């Protein structure tokens, strides 16, 4: 069976009509079948679903106030009452971790969403317009690739203050280039296809072609890079907050909790203060990386076994 790098549904292929028993399968059901075979990716997906649910619903179910101060229970190690121990103010670390996870995960998702939008716009424009526009935009991508991401994010945050949106935009500004390159490559190859020519001959406008006929087919490679982008966005935000330049108290992302735990861990040996927030970052990033790996295998047309 021929490849379908452009994402044509296999059902349209004349070859499948000859083989009568082959049921029509969409790209997505094919991808899902493939994805399920990657056991670690499946486990990663499970961890992410669980984590998101815990972060979203956990604090409501537990009913503990993450800011509740209880000096009688200060600096306690993990126990049944406080699963992940308490900090120097006696605040329950488990609830704080769940609430902090909301911040970490929303910042990362928002940053990736922004970077995809920018990357799609730049990539589509460059690939569809071609020529001078393409050249200029790709040189811009080169420039942004050469600027050291973490340094610039730190600089932007010191310039404009460490608010939610500043952090989101600072991360997004330095992570759209990969998407732009992928989308441009898709547009370059797709705009030469017969179905685009057909659309043009019946008088479909440029914008309509770029958005309705090319864009959906150019999205597949973006999915993998966006997934992996979430991992790096989490790491950048955590690093920023760990360095004390990101979220400030009382807001506490996982990185910020690590930042506040430093002296407790190093000087007093309260390992739980640092261990659990880092563990959450690690688990999330690991799960995202495995899911990305599974998606790459599942969406790679060369690897699909039918």
């Amino acid at each position, binding site marked *: 069976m021929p490849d379908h790098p452009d994402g044509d549904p296999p059902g349209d292929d004349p070859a499948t009509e000859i083989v009568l028993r082959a049921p029509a399968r969409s790209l997505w059901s094919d991808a899902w079948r493939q994805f399920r075979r990657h056991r670690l990716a499946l486990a990663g997906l499970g961890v992410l679903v669980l984590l998101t649910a815990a972060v979203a619903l956990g604090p409501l179910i537990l009913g503990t106030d993450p800011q509740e101060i209880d000096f009688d229970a200060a600096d306690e190690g993990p126990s049944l009452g406080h699963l992940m121990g308490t900090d120097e103010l006696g605040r329950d670390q488990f609830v704080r971790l769940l609430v902090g996870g909301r911040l970490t995960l929303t910042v990362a998702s928002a940053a990736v969403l922004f970077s995809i939008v920018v990357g799609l716009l730049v990539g589509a424009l460059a690939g569809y317009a071609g020529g001078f526009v393409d050249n200029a935009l790709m040189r811009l991508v080169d420039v942004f690739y050469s600027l050291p991401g973490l340094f610039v994010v730190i600089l932007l945050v010191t*310039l404009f203050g460490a608010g939610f949106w500043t952090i989101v935009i600072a991360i997004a500004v330095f992570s759209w280039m990969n998407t732009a390159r992928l989308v441009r490559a898709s547009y370059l190859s797709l705009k030469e296809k017969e179905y685009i020519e057909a659309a043009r001959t019946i008088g479909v406008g440029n914008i309509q072609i770029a958005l309705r006929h090319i864009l959906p087919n150019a999205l597949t490679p973006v999915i993998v890079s966006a997934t992996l982008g979430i991992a790096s966005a989490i790491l950048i935000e955590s690093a920023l907050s760990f360095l004390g330049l990101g979220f400030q108290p009382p807001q506490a992302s996982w990185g910020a909790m690590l930042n506040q735990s430093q002296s407790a861990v190093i000087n007093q040996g309260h390992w739980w203060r640092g261990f659990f927030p880092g563990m959450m970052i690690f688990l999330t990033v690991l799960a995202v990386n495995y899911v990305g790996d599974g998606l790459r295998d599942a969406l790679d047309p060369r690897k699909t076994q039918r």
Partner: protein
Amino acid sequence: MSSYVIRRSLQAIPLLIGISIVIFLMLQMTPGGPLASSEGGGGRATAERTERLRAEFGLDDPLPVQYLNWAGGIVTGDWGTSYNTGRPVLDTITDRLPTTLLLTGLAFLIALLIALPVGIRAATRQYSAFDYASSGLSFVGVSTPSFWFGLMLLYVFSFQLGWLPSSGLEDLRQAHVGLAAVWDRLSHLIMPVAVLALIATAQLTRYVRGSMLEVLHEDYVRTARGNGLPERNVIVRHAFRNAAIPVVTIAVLMIPELFLGAVITESIFAIPGMGRLFIDSADLRDYPVLLGILTIAALLVVVTNLLADLLYGLLDPRISYA
């Protein structure tokens, strides 16, 4: 070849100009802009003094003219003055550079020393227990936040065991001589280098494994085996030498990443390098120093990219640049 070197190097110039424009625009966004940067005043200047200085420093000139003046300064070594210390930015940075280069260099070396044998072994025994273990570990390594790894190392080796010092580059309480001095320096470097090398080692192991796997299926490897060469010989002389070409490129491209990672490492272990300088300058809003370090890091990216391209051409005889 030499004409290729020149042509490829010339291609870096428009890129450098683009980067310098972005950095110049960021400089414009800083409070006080380039004026405060060359005055070292940090915005304390009075209105008429500012007025006078504006004229003197050409800030009423159109932006392109200002850009050319600024870029000329960068090329001739005038990078402005630190708000904090009043010292020239370039001197401030070059003072800190050797420490960061030492950390980066050691971490790079460690990454290579671990990744090459592990990656090769994993590839030659694909789907063995060793392969699964090393693949799993490299996924873990890539996903580990380095600051967390550092913090946990500090807890185990400094707080619990008391084996390694928790900060700085040397024992400040007493001077050591001879072997004790060597151990003093080493003991301060072990944890920072381990933290810095972690992600690079994990990434590099995956690349080495991947490129070895590609090469091992090639005809020339089968031919070498068919000729009855010892397996060791086949792997090292025939397979690895070809697999090494993309690995060298990736390894060179990792140098700027290690350099960036030094920000976090130096911050955890209180090491007075460039990364620490960057964080301290961010706390103090010392924009000239921040932009200076940014410029150095961007230069490093451009230079290593160039180097990777040139090395690729040099190592792969199939590519000719006539």
